């Protein structure tokens, strides 16, 4: 029961793992993505943090990303960012 999460930059594939939840800083507001989320495409605010919850209730890991785009489909969540970390 996990969400497949991928974070990709032009330089490399930063993350590809199964997590509990990811909070995405969308242009029109943050949204949390759990497994089985409906398909969404959204642009991402500049200089915002993505919060990754490895398991329910754990401390979130924050990764700063710039200039990006998030896509949720039945395979999971993919974030395309220009810079990460």
């Amino acid at each position, binding site marked *: 029961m996990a969400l497949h999460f991928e974070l*990709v*930059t*032009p*330089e*490399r*594939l930063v993350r590809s793992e199964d997590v509990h939840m990811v909070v995405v800083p*969308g*242009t*029109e507001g943050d949204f949390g993505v759990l497994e089985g989320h*409906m*398909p*969404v*495409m*959204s*642009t991402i605010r500049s200089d915002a943090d993505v919060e990754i919850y490895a398991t329910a209730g754990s401390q979130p890991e924050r990764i700063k990303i710039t*200039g990006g*785009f998030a*896509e949720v*489909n*039945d395979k999971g969540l*993919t974030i*395309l960012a*220009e*810079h990460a970390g």
Partner: protein
Amino acid sequence: MASLKALKIRINSVKSTQKITKAMKMVAAAKLRRAQEAAEAARPYAERLEAVVSSIASKVEKGPQAPKLLAGTGKDDVHLFVVATSDKGLAGAFNTNIVRLARRRAEELRAAGKTVKFYTIGKKGRDQLARTYRGDIVHSIEPGDLGKLGFDSVQEWASDLTARFEAGEFDVAHLFFSKFVSVLTQEPTEIQLMPVAVAETGAVAATAGASVEYEPDEEEILADLLPRNVSVQLLRAQRENAASEQGSKMTAMDNATRNAGDMINKLTIQYNRTRQAAITTELVEIISGAEAL
């Protein structure tokens, strides 16, 4: 017949050339591995972006309000050739092959009555193109070491190109680079950079069927993604070029090393023959001198 000393000097000089080409080959081999890894690391991003752009673009109507980068300027009179080469030579026919392809395409378009301008990335490409098209080069960039190129500098070129496109300096942009197939084969390639060429089929299927929510709407996402797509295409070309350059250099230096080896063998044989001839002459002189007594 060259003197013994002259031959010896010649052999030593070829030997030191061989040492240099051998070292260059090994450096190229090490750099090639890194360049190849970088080219592969850039692939997932480019593939996903392309899939997303195609699937959104197929949903957006190509009306007058559609982004210029997608719909084009409505003409195809002025073509801009973005020719990506390297700053350094000694890489076999790497630079020449890219320039040759660009030149051939330019002649075709000129024959069809179009205007062709050049935007060169890399010193070698500029120098070669300047021989025939000096007045048509609108801008040149010297990227330095292709292997160390980051996304930031590529982004600068992309925004410069996009600004020129929006200003109506040209109608269609083509990108020329060398695709890395294997160490022995690099293929000069042309892709259309602007307006964005959208694959009509294929990637569309990925999101079809599911109702996708767009945040903000499709048009705005597309307006955000299209310039990014240009940078990513440019970056991909640079990465492919970096790998091709090293591959080509490795092959060229391997050939040079082998040629130097052949030459050393030939010169050594000649050296030995000359030495033996000198010894024989001396012996003949001594023997005939002794017989005369």
